[in-house]
């Protein structure tokens, strides 16, 4: 069981730091993470780890002069050294015009992000899931790989304006890849799950799904590249949304001119079926009600029916644009301009994946993508990536056969104009910040999605 430091201890540490700041303003963020992860491959646990770490980041400022320092040495000497480092940097710094200083004290809504049952999990429980998955794979002669993980965390913030925030966190996640046979490219299937309450997790359903997909992926064939109608399952579509978030949905990317939204707010930039909302309060993984700067997290309509509406602001980028901060700042541990939506949800539709597959005369169903990259032309959201772990050619609404992996390259703003149907259910998809939030994304049917290459012969 992870030893929690608790709200009182964090506030006590924060008060101690603030008392030594002289007349400087100070923002403090603590992040305690106890992370356990069990990895399996070749139907065997090959890596099983646990790490416990607490970092504290301090940003001191006097007017527009800033100094930042962080440490994971939480002794009185370690904390004092960290503060002295920040103060020394501040004294040598050049002024940052427009730096707004610490956030004012605020009240935060309550969100439930800590579940006792998840906090109680350890290596034995994780190993049991791995073992059960391996046994399920044997039923179909499959080899299992993947990971089972749990995180227990605490986020605490404080500043000299009286901000105090504390949020305990738990999350779990798993992913499974089932493979049929050996060699460098066996047919495979994938499924994943993430959430806060491990007692409600249906692990069996998840690894069973990976196994069924692997069986369906047997005997893949090559197909020609070109344009195909596609049903992208949530894991595949989430890869595209995740990249779109990185390249387009922060105020920094707009202010730098890199975002597809730059200069196009209140304009239709993509299909009217696309509505993206960042909402820490109505997410499949409840989010944290404040950001790392202490600003209450706002519900943020990012794209409404294809119209560009908003991006995530820190206090610094908000001041630059003359708007209110949205509660998405990364705080003292990052640059003042860093902010990003962490709880993105796409509005769901009214179809199941099977119903969307039946809508394809000739198309492809995709489980997930690999190594998507969205930096080719960020203003147009051009992305490329490969299919993996299960893709199938569909003809007349029926899966015809599995196919070998394909590379797509397409302009997402244009492709999303061709979204014809959306899954009725969103699925929580893990992000690297899954202790804080996740993506809630449905599957979609997109017409004329462009595949430009394949593995094997030619490209």
């Amino acid at each position: 069981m992870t030893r929690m430091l608790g709200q009182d201890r964090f506030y006590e540490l924060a008060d101690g730091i603030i008392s030594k700041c002289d007349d400087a303003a100070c923002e403090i963020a603590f992040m305690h993470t106890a992370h356990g992860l069990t990895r399996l491959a070749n139907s065997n646990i090959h890596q099983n780890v646990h790490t416990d770490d607490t970092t504290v980041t301090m940003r001191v400022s006097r007017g527009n002069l800033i100094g930042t320092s962080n440490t994971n040495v939480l002794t009185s000497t370690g904390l004092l050294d960290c503060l002295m480092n920040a103060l020394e940097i501040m004294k040598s710094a050049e002024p940052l015009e427009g730096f707004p200083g610490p956030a004012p004290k605020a009240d935060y809504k309550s969100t439930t992000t800590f579940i006792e049952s998840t906090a109680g999990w350890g290596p034995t429980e994780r190993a049991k899931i791995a073992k059960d998955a391996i046994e399920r794979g044997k039923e179909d002669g499959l080899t299992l790989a993947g990971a089972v993980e749990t995180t227990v965390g605490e986020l605490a913030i404080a500043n000299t304006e009286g901000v105090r925030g504390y949020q305990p966190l738990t999350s779990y996640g798993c992913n499974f890849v089932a493979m049929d046979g050996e060699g460098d490219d066996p047919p495979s299937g994938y499924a994943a799950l993430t959430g806060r309450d491990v007692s409600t997790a249906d692990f069996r359903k998840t690894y069973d799904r990976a196994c069924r997909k692997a069986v369906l992926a047997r005997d893949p064939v090559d197909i020609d590249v070109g344009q195909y109608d596609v049903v992208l399952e949530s894991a595949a579509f989430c890869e595209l949304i995740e990249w779109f978030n990185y390249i387009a949905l922060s105020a920094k990317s707009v202010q730098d001119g890199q975002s597809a939204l730059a200069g196009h707010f209140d304009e239709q930039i993509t299909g009217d079926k696309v509505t993206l909302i960042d909402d820490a309060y109505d997410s499949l993984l409840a989010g944290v009600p404040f950001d790392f700067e202490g600003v209450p997290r706002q519900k943020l309509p990012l794209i409404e029916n294809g119209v560009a509406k908003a991006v995530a602001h820190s206090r610094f980028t908000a001041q630059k644009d003359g708007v209110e901060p949205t509660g998405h700042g990364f705080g003292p541990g990052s640059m003042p301009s860093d902010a990003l939506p962490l709880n993105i949800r796409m509005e769901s539709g009214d179809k199941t994946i099977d119903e969307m597959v039946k809508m394809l005369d000739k198309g492809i169903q995709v489980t997930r993508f690999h190594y998507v990259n969205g930096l080719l032309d960020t203003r147009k959201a051009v992305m490329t990536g490969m299919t993996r772990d299960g893709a199938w050619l569909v003809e007349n609404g029926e899966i015809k056969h599995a196919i070998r992996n394909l590379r797509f390259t397409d302009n997402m703003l244009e492709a999303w104009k061709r979204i014809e149907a959306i899954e009725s259910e969103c699925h929580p998809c893990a992000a690297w910040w899954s202790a804080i939030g996740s993506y809630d994304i449905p599957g979609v049917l997109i017409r004329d999605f462009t595949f430009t290459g394949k593995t094997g012969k030619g490209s």
Partner: protein
Amino acid sequence: MEFLPAAIDRLKQLGCDYADARWVDTKREVVVLRNGKLESVQRSVDAGAGVRVIADGAWGFAGVASGEEADIIAAAETAFEIAKASATTKREDVKLGDIEIYQDTYETPIEKDPFTVPLKDKIQLLTKISDILHGHEKIISSESSCGAIHIDKRFVSTEGADIRQHLVETGAGYEVTASEGDEVQRRTYPNSFRGDWAKRGWEQVEEMKLLDNAERIRDEAVMLLTADECPVGKKDIIIYGDQLALQIHESCGHPIELDRVMGTEISLAGGSFMQPKLVGNLKYGSPIVNIYSDSTSPGGLGTFGYDDEGVKSTRTEIIKDGLFVGYLSSRECQASTGHPANGAMRADGWQNTPLIRMINVNLAPGEWELDDLIADSNGAIYMMTNKSWSIDDRRVNFKFGCELAYEIENGKLGRPFKNPAYTGITPEFWNSCDAICNEKYWHIWGIPTCGKGEPMQSAHVAHGAAPTRFRGVSVGGTS
């Protein structure tokens, strides 16, 4: 860290098969200017202990951010319990290959400790760069940065190893963005994604000619706004060293990680087409392609004394005269495959268990002068500086975007092209290599952001490369 041996003693008492313990104390400083304003100076300290155990024939690992003896011993006990849990699925006992056991110290050779350079001097350098970058009305943003890292490590094991290392890394770089209407173009120097890093002191930054190149880089960004789109089709291409470094990284460096080859990364990063049966048989590249791993390359970001399981740094042939001959390996892989551990087991800090990671994976220089190569390449396209990257989960089908390209006309660089990209199949691509520039143009490019593993670990690696020509590559724009 004096308490590591106590953790090892405790694990011996518990009856482990093997254990090692590492103390890693990392100090960083990063200075960032955005749009001419000092946006961030950040100093950080990160210290802790990681304990790796084999018990009941299976692995366990625990890390703790504490220098207290009781906490480190508790972490060792947790690692032991985790190993016992791992053993519930084991197919066979983990075995480690035999290595020479060292008690030694190692320090990165440097001329000027980057932490002794006054902060004001660093800010002044970045400000001068920024002033030049913003000297054109079409520049809408810029970012310049420099950084330094000190890593102090100790490694001890149940086999008697005791190794202390002091490593120093230094780097810098900048990017500039030009815009007109909906057109946006970015250039970076000396490489994309925070520049170029090395296991060197501040002399690394002083030799980078950051100021000398700022005006050119700025003007190239502006030039790209009105440049033609890169043409589509099969073309000969010359790839400059900065982009070729990432090509080596993705299409050779990752697929030769033997743990990956054996399937341990299959669920996340994927597998590898470079299977053991292909060693000595796969004609990976043309006969002029020679790729080697070398954690002794002077200044390379992947250079150190010993890896994180106590194996001394070394050089290994990977591609010899075009033939695939070797892997990056570990003690566990040595025992299971016979490929000797070659100093490639590296962990991201104390928090993580070591994985097989790239070190310096270098393409040996050839014989060409760059001007001669360009003169010999009429109709080819010369591409430089990575903008985007993607490769499949077996490292076969890749697509890279670059920041800038030039058409080669009449033996000289001609029209610039924007949004250049190329795509290919790894062995076909490397077999189309027919000219590599000589050591005068060869540089080890440091990449401080190589990701692998769950939980994700970031490794600092490097790739030596010189401008190189490939024949008949699929080239196109990005749309």
